[in-house]
């Protein structure tokens, strides 16, 4: 083989995945179909460090959130039967939910515009969540992330509610409904719903997380996940599914249902997002793609199709380290196989750091903490010197330049953020206009020098309770460190509180295996903190009140 000879696709794909072609580490499975033919199906690495079996095209893997559009289709099948109205309020089917106006519809839960908080997000580190715990967590909410329809915030809890609606409307278990109505009719015989990692599924790969001590630990989530991420499948079954998904005539689901599946979301203010019903539609190098990724403890997935070119790709991994990135690798496959029809790659322009923008910005009204930071996310050399956008204390996520000095930031499963810096003073940008899902807010620069911890901690220690999280927080100050220990249903998480001002704190989980991130806003009366507002990427305005 010489470099100027064009490689055949199989050789090129082998080269793309060669680094996982080893027998001492877990890896991934890949399936590719093009113009009606399966052209590639291979496993790389170990299915399980324990068993010593290799990944093969027959290895079952968890597709995680790629499950979501199956759950959406299941709802639409019941709608076709007249048993479910996806534009009805979720409380029609789950009346035990609190009445929080406006009530989200099933469709809004499907496209993550429902606004309900997600019990899964709130329970991280606080122990396992059964379906009942998840429902109980939903039922106790007294607030929402945002009013239904106004914006998009990825919600696994919403898909668990949809699963419950499917079960109640159909009278069948979620796993059974999907098997009978979707998997079996399409001949996806190796595909099933396994709602916990306690279930033993013949032929399933072990999920692997890198151990800080070297080697691998089991990726294990004891909680239940159904419509939000419970499906186990194989590359062969997923290729069957992809061919059906983009076909002109569907064997499962009416054409009207499929039209809805692929309709992009319109927010309340008229702006249109790329997320449909458990699927995303985006343009990549001039071709339209339909895709959805998945991620879980010890594995990841990307399902992508280019309908116009009849190109279907499924990549599922049983590790999360070692460079696996199914979304990027799916795009690399598109690059290889559609080289002749693709537009020239748009150079991915990451915005260079602009020193005057660097800093933290805050919206007092909503307690939202933003930041423009150096996005050296993982300490990689080529990440240095790029501008990153942070919300609720996340690391800086690289931004790209837009017109008129604005920046964009877009992650899978989110709408696009548009960040527009305001005027500068003394060489520092004083404010940011943040636009998300078509609505704006203005964040004002926080001082660059934080207060001494002892000053910021004044009036803060004590015990607080959060009804919506059903958790008690104990804030302590010792040895110049402010700690917040949040104790919930079956566990606790310790956060280190790093002051930005006496009122605004970055909260960072102290467990390196579960580096939880949040922001905290403090309200004091007579110098004593009375209320703490806790915000994360997927949960807003959780209120802790002093006990």
């Amino acid at each position: 083989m010489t470099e100027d000879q064009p490689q055949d696709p199989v050789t090129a794909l082998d080269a793309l995945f060669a680094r996982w072609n080893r027998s001492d580490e877990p890896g991934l499975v890949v399936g590719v179909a093009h113009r009606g033919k399966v052209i590639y199906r291979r496993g790389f690495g170990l299915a399980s460090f324990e068993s010593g079996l290799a990944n093969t095209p027959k290895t079952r893997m968890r597709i995680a959130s790629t499950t979501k559009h199956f759950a959406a289709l299941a709802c639409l099948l019941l709608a076709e039967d007249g048993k479910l109205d996806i534009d009805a309020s979720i409380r029609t089917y789950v009346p035990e939910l609190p009445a929080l106006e406006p009530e989200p519809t099933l469709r809004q839960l499907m496209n993550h515009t429902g606004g309900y908080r997600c019990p899964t997000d709130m329970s991280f580190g606080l122990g396992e969540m059964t379906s009942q715990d998840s429902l109980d967590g939903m039922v106790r909410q007294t607030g929402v992330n945002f009013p239904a329809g106004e914006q998009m915030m990825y919600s696994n809890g919403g898909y668990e509610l949809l699963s419950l609606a499917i079960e109640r409307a159909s009278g069948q278990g979620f796993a059974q409904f999907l098997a009978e109505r979707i998997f079996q009719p399409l001949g996806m015989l190796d595909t099933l719903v396994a709602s916990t990692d306690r279930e033993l599924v013949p032929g399933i790969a072990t999920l692997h997380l890198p151990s800080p001590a070297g080697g691998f630990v089991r990726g294990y989530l004891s909680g239940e996940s159904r419509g939000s991420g419970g499906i186990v499948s194989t590359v062969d079954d997923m290729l069957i599914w992809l061919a059906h998904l983009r076909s002109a005539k569907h064997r499962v689901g009416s054409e009207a249902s499929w039209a809805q599946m692929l309709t992009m979301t319109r927010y309340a203010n008229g702006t249109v997002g790329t997320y449909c019903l458990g699927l995303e539609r985006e343009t990549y190098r001039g071709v339209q793609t339909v895709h959805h990724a998945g991620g879980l403890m010890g594995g990841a997935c990307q399902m992508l199709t280019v309908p116009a070119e009849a190109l279907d790709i499924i990549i599922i991994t049983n590790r999360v380290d070692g460079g696996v990135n199914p979304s990027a690798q799916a795009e690399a496959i598109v690059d290889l196989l559609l080289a002749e029809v693709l537009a020239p790659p748009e150079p991915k322009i990451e915005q260079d750091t602009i020193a005057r923008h660097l800093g933290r910005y805050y919206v007092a009204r909503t307690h939202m903490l933003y930041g423009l930071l150096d996005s050296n996310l993982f300490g990689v050399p080529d990440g240095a010197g790029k501008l990153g956008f942070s919300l609720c204390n996340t690391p800086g996520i690289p931004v790209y330049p837009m017109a008129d000095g604005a920046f964009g930031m877009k992650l899978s499963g989110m709408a696009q953020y548009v960040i527009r810096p305001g005027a500068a003073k003394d060489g520092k940008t004083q404010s940011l206009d943040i636009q998300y899902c078509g609505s704006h807010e203005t964040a004002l620069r926080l001082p660059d020098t934080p207060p001494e911890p002892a000053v910021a901690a004044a009036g803060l220690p004590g015990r607080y309770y959060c009804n919506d999280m059903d958790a008690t927080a104990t804030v302590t100050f010792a040895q110049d460190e402010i700690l917040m220990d949040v104790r919930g249903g079956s566990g606790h998480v310790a956060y280190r509180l790093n002051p930005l001002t006496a009122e605004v704190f970055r909260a960072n989980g102290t467990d390196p295996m579960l580096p939880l991130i949040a922001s905290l806003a403090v309200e004091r009366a007579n110098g004593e903190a009375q209320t703490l507002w806790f915000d994360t990427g997927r949960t807003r305005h959780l209120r802790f009140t002093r006990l």
Partner: protein
Amino acid sequence: MTDDPKQQTPAEGLDALFAKWNRMDEPGLVVGVAHRGAVIYRRGFGMASLESGLVNTPKTRMRIGSTTKHFTCLAALLLAEEGKLDIDAGIRTYIPELPAFDPDPTLRQLMNHTGGLRCFIDLAMYSSGISAIPDGGALDFMVRQHDRNFAPGDEMIYCNGGYFLLSLAIERVSGLSFEAFLKERIFLPLGMTDTVAHSSDLELLSGMATLHNAAADGSFTRGIFPVRIKGEGSIVSTIDDMLGWIRHLRAADHRVGGAETWRQMLTRPRYNSGTESNYCLGLSREFYRGIETIHHAGGVMGGQSQMLTVPDHELDIIIMANRSGTDPSGLALKIIDILLADALDPLSAKVEGTVGEAVAGRYHGARSHLLYGLSVTDGKLGFSLSNSPAMPLTAGADGAFALSIPGMGDFVIRANDPVEGKSRSIVVDYCGRQEAAERLPDEPPETAAAADGFVGRYDGPDQGAGATVTLVDGHLRLALQGQYGRTVYKLMPVSRDVFAGMADDPLLPLPLSITAHRTGGQVDLFWIDTGRTRHLQFTRL
């Protein structure tokens, strides 16, 4: 092969014994047997993992659970041989952060479960269910205790927490991790190259069987114990390695550990009462049909083991199961029945205690607060401790009844002469120590009456738990909010101040008893007693 046991070869007899696990749709077990210096049987049955589809083989690695304990004792004794550790010193010599109880239990007492300290696993399970305990959480439980189960040497209660402390002492004195110490000092010198101390079910070990919990409907789920364990039960091994180990254990000359060390390993301790215990240092010595056995069993979530040797007949047995519900201890005895048939005493008919209704009832220990239950089922007498399921009593001398509970000392129960057809009290002899227990009323009070003054919130600092007693729709419940989770118990009044509790979780039906203390009708504190935790105090908030 013939069905007539007399004409079967030993291997055929063993194949027949294990035939029910010779199937490919269920997990099973691995069995190794050596007799008179020769390995005569090594086989795997069933699946190593219902996920991978691999079968159990003699090379399959399995968890041996608590059979780990005597390795931990030997490790401590190896350090004692070097003068680095004194196993007759108090445990606070090595772990000074423990609370000061007088006297401090010695390492040796922790080894034979007479130390009297409460166990973090029992404390955690009763308050938090099967929940993850972060590293450091185990020691936190042991350190936060204000009280203990009993004074060292008085009694025996199986205590995993004691072995956790021994592991910590080994680590501190040796400067090595427990896992590395066992590897360097025991496994490698003896060529047990497939054996490791593997502290977490969340860490992956190549060649290890999946653990399977059997459900009532015949299905299986993954067995995961989300707590890091050490000397109390972390070893993973193979039948070949374990057969090598058992041969070394009963050898006249030992390559690892001196003769004095091994003498101590197998010495029966005495309780303070002078009564002898058959639990040595992580090993039990018992007679079975006239022959002496040395053995220890193990149990983990989704796995079981039994290691047994008959030194006089050079018979070594290891059975490790990667599922629940196989009874390796019973199977090991059946192997003895098959292989040593000629040397064994006749199977003595097990005389179960039969007695009239005179003694049946509930009794309350005056000193211990323990709730003793004596019940008659099908004419057989059963004994229950703190609301546990009834265990059969055997008829002892002089009209007494006896019971041996694995991991505990021997019970002897004497009923006093009945008055109006009912024994008013019993005397319970445990580890040679007696206490009187008075009969509780046969008719329990109405729940609402007993709940009066009991409902409310309490704090249990030793368990690190809050307790809430509620009466809703006539149901009395105790909810414990522990460090890492929550448990709920149904409470049934036995008398106004004694309650029998059972966890409201069919998968983890934990029994307990409660003794309430009232001041002016109001309960101001109560004590919880379980099989392994005594008088755990909760005070009204």
